[in-house]
């Protein structure tokens, strides 16, 4: 039961990431510097996923301490 609860609280986070992916779509070239918006948004999003994954995985897998 506790496992279910801890998973459920993660749903909004994944929803936000999915929405962010949609927002990244138009990928406007934006300001004229050498780092266009599209690049900052999509590569930045990868790091957001990385951090979310780190915390999520730790929480989901830390309950299992068994070894082979």
């Amino acid at each position: 039961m506790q496992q279910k609860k801890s998973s459920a609280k993660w749903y909004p986070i994944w929803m936000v990431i999915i929405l962010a992916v949609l927002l990244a779509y138009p990928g406007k070239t934006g300001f004229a510097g050498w780092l266009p918006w599209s690049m900052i948004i999509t590569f930045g999003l990868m790091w957001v996923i990385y951090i979310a994954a780190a915390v999520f995985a730790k929480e989901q897998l830390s309950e299992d301490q068994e070894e082979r």
Partner: protein
Amino acid sequence: MSDIIPIIIVFAYMVLCLALGGYGLKDSLKSGQADQGSDFFLAGRQISPFMASMTYIATVFSALVFLGSVGIYYNLGIGFNILLLSEMAAVAIFFPTIGKMFWKLAEKHDFVTPADLVSHRFGGSSLIRLLVGIISLAFIFPFMAVQIVGISYVMVTVTNNWLSYPAAVIFIAVVLAIYISLGGYRSVVWTDAIQVFMLGGAMLLTFIVIVTKFDVPQIFTHVLSVRGAIFNTPGPVPVYKLGMWITQFLMIGIGFVLMPQLWVRIYAVKKVQGLRNISLYFIGATAVLFLFAFIFAVVCADFYSTKKILPDKLILTFLFEHSPRWLAATLLTGAIAASMSTIDSLVLCISSIVTRDLYSKLYKPEVPKNEVLWGRVISVLLLVISAVLAFFPPPLFFGVLIDVMYPGIIALAPATIIGLLWKRASQGGAVLSLVVGACLAIYLVATKQNPMGLYSGLWVFLASALGLWLGSLIMPVQAGKEYNYAQDIAG
């Protein structure tokens, strides 16, 4: 002289791979389980979390990263990032949840292939084993053949045509055949770990060469004006329209995590915590390596936007034109390493599918001792077939992955993932799901269609899920015989 150094570098690397093959064999003999299928195909499930991550990354990143991704960013623009975002999000969600279920089941029931798991879920059905085996085989085979094309391109360039394309294909196939058949998964894990560092180092060095030699901000500003579509969706070749963008995000990750050669890597991990390492190392490495690849593509766009060069060969051409030959050769040995690490995993995985799912479990269930011998013979045979297919290279490496492989593998998703979560999914439903999904995938791949502008994989998934649902309604599970995961791993 400058032509000999690249040849020496490449050959030294090949000798290293062979030596690691020998080491794998020694290690396997020492374990006392050298005649066991799970030892040859999965190194006895004793892969440490770190090595598991390295072999996972090495398997994912092939010539596609160094050559293919530069080509595809150049051709299709930054919209290609949706493939990466989808794979990363899928890995992040899948590994700690469904991946954990896979691992526990594999540990409990000694699974070696994807079909072992799916067939077990549906009461040990031989028909389901056969279907999963055939689908896995049919859709990952072209991907394996493409890898040899990538390496051979590089070999020819690195040795300045000293090795012809056919000679390069044969040479690579022989080296792979020797080290894979010697130590199986144990050899593959070691070569994979080295190959990850070679690829990462090569991309980092290439990046350093570029930033020290050129004014990168100036190049970016210039490319914004001459090929600005690279930075935008739908891209220079307008593929990434909104519908395609969303549906690829939803589907590609599912195909990715279920790719048989990656799926079985979950089984081989020693501890469940290793899954966390795999997902984090993979996501981090993707974010770094593809940022490099994108920068390379922009730089190549600045130099070659008016010239006719095969997109997959852009970075090759660039390195040899703008850095010393010996340096270019060293860097490109990283690309060779990357592809070899992917092929070896694919060969071993396909070999296990053929040996176990299509032969030993179906026809000769009583002779598991032959499994390793068969595994070796089939590995060699697969490399021979791939080498022959490598004489017909495709126009774009990533095209094979996105348009051929993922749609097919997605057909496995409903029976596997929904099957584990939905207790009343029946054997009949799984068969219908696999057949309908695979037939639609074959049709869409053959006709190169993305109906209504939505990714073909989405239609395959929907048809396959509908098949599971309808089949389970028409041929329901007997009362009291519903599948229960918790009981399965406990009992």
